[in-house]
């Protein structure tokens, strides 16, 4: 009678197969995570992500320091054609809601010289600042410009507007925002 030796080869095969499956699973989850949809509209009804932005005038604004103040956050760029369409309207609205809603412009992927020219051309007087390393754009998951976020006094996003906004909708949302300011 011959003795049967322990199956070394099959153990190695099982280990190799397990490692291969684990590697495939890891790859699958990495890709699945990468493909996950991340849109700004998903933030509607959620707390606004924290931010710190220094305006072109040198003033620093953070979500924490603005707690208690309703905020309109508008992402824009001087090269953005759609942004021109709402620039004058936003400036007018910022004057109409002065003291009730703070308007904050976030200059996205722009150069300072062109941003300043844009602000002068459209008479933008509310604070605006460059989004350094696009940190705020990433946190707010914007997919382009213009995008506008309406943040209540207690830091909740009540509406995300992708693309330029029209006057009736803007003023309706601003009334809602102003009411949260007390």
């Amino acid at each position: 009678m011959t003795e049967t030796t322990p199956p070394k080869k099959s153990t190695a095969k099982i280990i190799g197969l397990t490692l291969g499956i684990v590697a495939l699973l890891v790859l699958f989850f990495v890709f699945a995570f990468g493909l996950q949809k991340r849109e700004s509209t998903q933030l509607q009804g959620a707390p606004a992500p924290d931010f710190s932005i220094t305006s072109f005038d040198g003033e620093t604004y953070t979500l924490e320091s603005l707690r208690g103040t309703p905020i309109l956050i508008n992402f824009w760029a001087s090269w953005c054609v759609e942004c021109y369409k709402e620039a004058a309207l936003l400036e007018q609205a910022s004057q109409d809601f002065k003291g009730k809603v703070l308007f904050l412009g976030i200059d996205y992927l722009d150069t300072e010289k062109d941003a300043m020219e844009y602000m002068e051309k459209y008479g933008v007087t509310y604070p605006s600042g460059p989004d350094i390393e696009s940190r705020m754009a990433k946190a707010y998951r914007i997919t382009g410009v213009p995008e506008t976020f309406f943040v209540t006094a207690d830091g909740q996003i009540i509406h995300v507007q992708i693309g330029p906004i029209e006057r009736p909708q803007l003023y309706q949302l601003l009334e809602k925002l102003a009411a949260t300011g007390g």
Partner: protein
Amino acid sequence: MKKYAIPFLFLVTVIVFVAAVAPVFAQEPSMDAVNHVARKLNCPTCQSLNLEDCRTQTCDQWRDQIKDLLAEGYTEQEVLDWFIARFGVEVLQEPPRQGHGLFAWLLPAVGLLIGVGWLAFTLRRWSVANAETVPVTADTPADIGVDEEYLRKIEEDLKEF
């Protein structure tokens, strides 16, 4: 002496004019210098296009920014650093060869090494397995691990048959 006075004055005027105007032209960076930096940066609004090839307004503005910085005396690396500080490391066409950027450079090499290692191991295993196989001939019965008792029974059955 008088006949040299006019050429001398003319020469002095030319030298003074060139000395005054030359720095102005010297400070203006060439398009080649601008494009040399631009091709190392990504267009911020398109996919996979570099700043040199892209014709969008954004890229025009960014190329102007490069030109302004070069005119201010920034070196190529300082211009790239300025863009990284302002727009993030994603702005570079090539990931940096440090920090997280190293992964992008090392992973393909590591993958290749693992692949070559696996291939070498598999080929070696195959060749060893082939070498261990005893060729089956008419004279030498193959050792295929068949139970000897079983063989003996077959022999007996064959004899009876």
